[in-house]
């Protein structure tokens, strides 16, 4: 079989941690199959990124370099990666299940006339037919499916945390510069402007306090803020998160949404206030060390996965709790 290829992504100019996890997964498969494991970085100025990617024991790092690959214009990236696959014919192509991977993966798979499996938690190779076995959650996480697909390359996007990040290797990988053939005409969707909003990174928090549809009014999030302020004196970095209905009501921006289509986090403590515990929310926070739930419904799902449960109205519990915490100091 030919080489394994993976797409490396940058975050704030450095290697994204998700890419280090993807390298771990890809290198594992490479050893098992006895084939080379290579990475591609795409952009208009990839020298530094390629160099960082070259220190993790990969066989090669392709620098896919083109002015149109600056920023992330999906049309250009799909075209560039399609071109690269034509050059190197990878047997397996892996991407992170990230904003980039989710968009590029399906389109690229279609152009290469192969099949992609998205959001995989595990990958292995069937020794019988050599096909990639892709393990992914379905029905929001209520079932775990393993499946195989025909087609070359074998393609998958991989969920965050599916693998441990890879450690640095002793020798550096070879860096190969490639200039793809991308014409202006490849770009059919034109970016007019990027509106940057302040985004929070919930995965950096020690404690996340999330409100759900049970929160009656937008102002009531002030109570959660007060709790966060009280806890931040002793618990480190405390942030406010939410379930999806809160985003739907435009009370919070989507970077605060926890869950399948939001952020997947594992803080020391997760406090769920007025959140019922739908599977799509649970997959985002179930790995929290301790889970505390405040909910008026004793039968709600959140109590089934929580370590501590308070059956009651947050409007009674939280102000009293804040007062108590403040007294303690």
């Amino acid at each position, binding site marked *: 079989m030919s080489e394994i290829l993976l797409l490396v992504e940058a975050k704030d100019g450095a290697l994204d941690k998700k890419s280090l996890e993807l390298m771990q997964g890809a290198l594992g498969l490479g050893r098992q199959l006895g084939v080379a494991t290579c990475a591609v970085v795409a952009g208009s100025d990839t020298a530094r990124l390629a160099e960082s990617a070259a220190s993790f024991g990969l066989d090669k790092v392709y620098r896919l370099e083109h002015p149109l690959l600056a920023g992330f214009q999906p049309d250009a990236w799909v075209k560039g990666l399609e071109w690269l696959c034509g050059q190197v014919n990878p047997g397996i192509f892996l991407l992170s299940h990230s904003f980039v991977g*989710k968009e590029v993966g399906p389109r690229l798979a279609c152009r290469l006339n192969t099949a992609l499996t998205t959001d995989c938690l595990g990958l292995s190779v069937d020794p019988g037919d050599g096909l990639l076995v892709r393990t992914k959650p379905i029905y929001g996480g209520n079932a775990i499916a393993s499946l195989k697909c025909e087609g070359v390359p074998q393609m998958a996007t991989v969920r965050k945390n599916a693998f441990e990040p890879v450690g640095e290797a002793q020798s550096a990988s070879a860096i190969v510069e490639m200039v793809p053939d991308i014409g202006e005409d490849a770009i059919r969707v034109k970016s007019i402007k990027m509106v940057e*909003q302040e985004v929070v990174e919930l995965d950096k928090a020690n404690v996340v306090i999330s409100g759900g549809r049970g929160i009656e009014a937008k102002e009531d999030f002030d109570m959660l803020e007060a709790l966060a302020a009280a806890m931040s004196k002793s618990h480190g970095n405390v942030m406010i998160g939410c379930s999806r209905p809160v985003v739907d009501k435009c009370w919070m921006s989507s970077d605060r949404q926890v869950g399948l289509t939001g952020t997947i986090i594992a803080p020391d403590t997760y406090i769920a206030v007025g959140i019922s515990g739908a*599977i799509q929310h649970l997959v985002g926070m179930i790995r929290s060390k301790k889970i505390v739930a405040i909910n008026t419904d004793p039968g709600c799902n959140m109590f089934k996965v929580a370590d*501590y449960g308070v059956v009651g109205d947050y409007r009674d519990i939280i102000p009293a709790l804040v007062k108590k*915490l403040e007294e303690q100091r």
Partner: protein
Amino acid sequence: MKEPQIIVCAKQIPDPEAPFSNVTVNVEKKQVAVDAPDVISPYDENALEAAIRIKEELGGKITILSMGRKVSDTVLRKTIAAGADALVLLEDPLFEGLDSGSTAHVLSCAIKKIGDWDLVLTGRQAGDWDSGQVGLIMGEMLDVPCVSLARSIKIDDGKLLVEKSVPVGYEMVEASLPALVTVSNEVGELRYVARSKMLGLLRRPMSIPKWNSKDLGCDIDRLKKLQLTELVPPADMGRQCTLIEGAAQDQACRLAEVLSELR
């Protein structure tokens, strides 16, 4: 500009928000059974809402396209009650259990058969398999500009303007029509449909074309089923929950102690 012809792809699935205790995984048969009523996949409802808003502004026609087995009139007529104009069902035993690429092929064939269209909208992902592929692949197959994760869609002077959700905020993008857009929940929920309106509609006769693989002239060799090798329930997520009881004051005191121990 002429009034826009919009096609919304909508999938019928068991309610994805049913509690997990209502979901059973049959390991032997490799099947998931959900004890919940069928609904339209939530992001497809968002897509329909986006379509209705365009129609309110510019007029035009909304056609709902749905592939699947035993697609229920009752479930899909909700789309008509909300503001769609026509319904087309794609039914064939060959369409069962298809992978994303094959599903996109069938839907694309149907869209080509409908012929006159300016915009195709799909949900960002289906609420059962959560793959998030069909819309994007259709964009490729139809060979039109394709935008994903829309939080707002407008047609202005014959041009498509989309606000697309991106990790740092949102991006304004522009493309020509015809085009395909996948829609995210930030667009807003599908408007409320009064029950009486639904019931009235159900009584009214309505012709709903049903097309099979022959009608569509789709490439049967192109239709590939998902090859499941294994299906298992997830690891048990349950924890032993210590319930903190009593009056609110006492609960708050105890919880404060618990939180202090957790630091």
